[in-house]
């Protein structure tokens, strides 16, 4: 069976490294880009099974990226998760309203819970 493909937009080099190692360990194909507009370009080339977006990024932030991704006809059903350090309830609500499937707060979840949650989503 083909490996599931996860597209990640993240500009922080420390988180980037974590995602690269962890996703490989979990057995996923992963593409990591540094901002939202690149994520949209990559999503057009190859349809991801899951998209993880940081919130604060250069060029195109998480909110705008959700909007742009949801306009692509192929990506109407693709799961989009926000993974942010921001924990404001309003941010969460806004992301969900724009079409994100969930909103996870980076610092408040153990890495294994992140792995488990992703596996559940892709099962």
């Amino acid at each position: 069976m083909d490996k599931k493909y996860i597209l990640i937009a993240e500009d922080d080099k420390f988180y980037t490294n974590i995602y690269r190692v962890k996703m490989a360990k979990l057995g996923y194909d992963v593409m990591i880009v540094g901002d939202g507009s690149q994520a949209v370009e990559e999503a057009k080339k190859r349809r991801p099974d899951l998209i993880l977006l940081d919130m604060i990024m250069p060029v195109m932030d998480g909110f705008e990226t959700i909007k742009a991704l949801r306009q692509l006809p192929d990506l109407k059903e693709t799961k989009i998760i926000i993974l942010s350090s921001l924990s404001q309830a309003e941010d969460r609500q806004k992301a969900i309203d724009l079409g994100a499937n969930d909103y996870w707060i980076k610092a408040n979840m153990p890495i294994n819970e992140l792995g488990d949650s992703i596996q559940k989503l892709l099962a």
Partner: protein
Amino acid sequence: MDLSDLTARYEAVIRGLGSGLIITGLLNKISFINDKACELTGWNQEEIVGKSFEEIFPIVTNDQGKSGFSQDGVLFQLANSAKGTVYYLTRKDGTNFPAGMTTSSIIVGGKVAGTAIVFSDITEKLSAEKAKSDFIAITSHQLRTPLGSMRWNLEMLLSGDYGQLPQEAKIAVDQVLENDMRMLEMVNNLLDVSRIDQGRVPNLPTSTDLGDAVRQVIKELDLTAKSKAINLIYESKTICPRVNIDPKRFRDVVENLISNAVKYTPEHGEVKVVVDGNEKEFNFSVSDTGMGIPLAEQERLFHRFFRAANAIKSQADGSGLGLYIVKSYVENWGGKVWFKSEEGKGTTFYFKIPVVLQ
């Protein structure tokens, strides 16, 4: 001292007063306004003396009310205003300014004959408070990003994602992780406090099984309790009601209280959690056999950053923010939190919250 002497003294006080002063008589009719009050509001003496205070100065607050005038139409009510309420006075030109106000009744022959209202413009004070809160919020977010990536990296080191570590290294990494988590908790608490101070406590209520939520917290704290050989007991007197409440905030409250009890109870002690509910209210208590709170310090226990002397001496971690957060949330739900404690014997914390029907 004769009457003219006394009058001269009062006049000097009123002239020299750096605050606005308005005196009202029966039916809240304005009988006097000092120069500073004229300067602050834009009105002059002739224009408003004899008019009703409410008519000239409709009270505007940032949280829709809870202020106004008492039934007898005289006493100006500010005492039971909600925390964080800001009152605005309206100027003659229709603009508002935030006013710090105090009022006192003028009693003549045992009856309220009017009110003295002293006020100042607190625009600058508010902006300083906002700057402080913003600073806390911004630095907290800035800190959380690196603390969060450190957490994940450390967890991955421990779980072997970067290869197996020697036993000694594992212990060291585990200790770094513990410190990292401690800092994260502090940052999260600071963020909560800055939101409380700004009156922006996040509230995402959903139908929550309170008994379940308490049991979940106990389950998570059981390991810590066991490591100190503390007997952590749960007792539910009735089936707990479901309440429409923000589950995360409720969890924060329960977790703070139970983890404090475990933290400040010596080895082989006992921590007992009792929940009880009916269709009107939910009651919670947690009793410990810990060090207790010194009588002289009990009054300040819910203050921000306050920690009792024996708690500091015990070397247990704490930021002094937990109980402040607990009190703010519980009161925000219309509830009440209190405690009974005896130094050297133990403490029981209680809270109750009304059940909002689904």
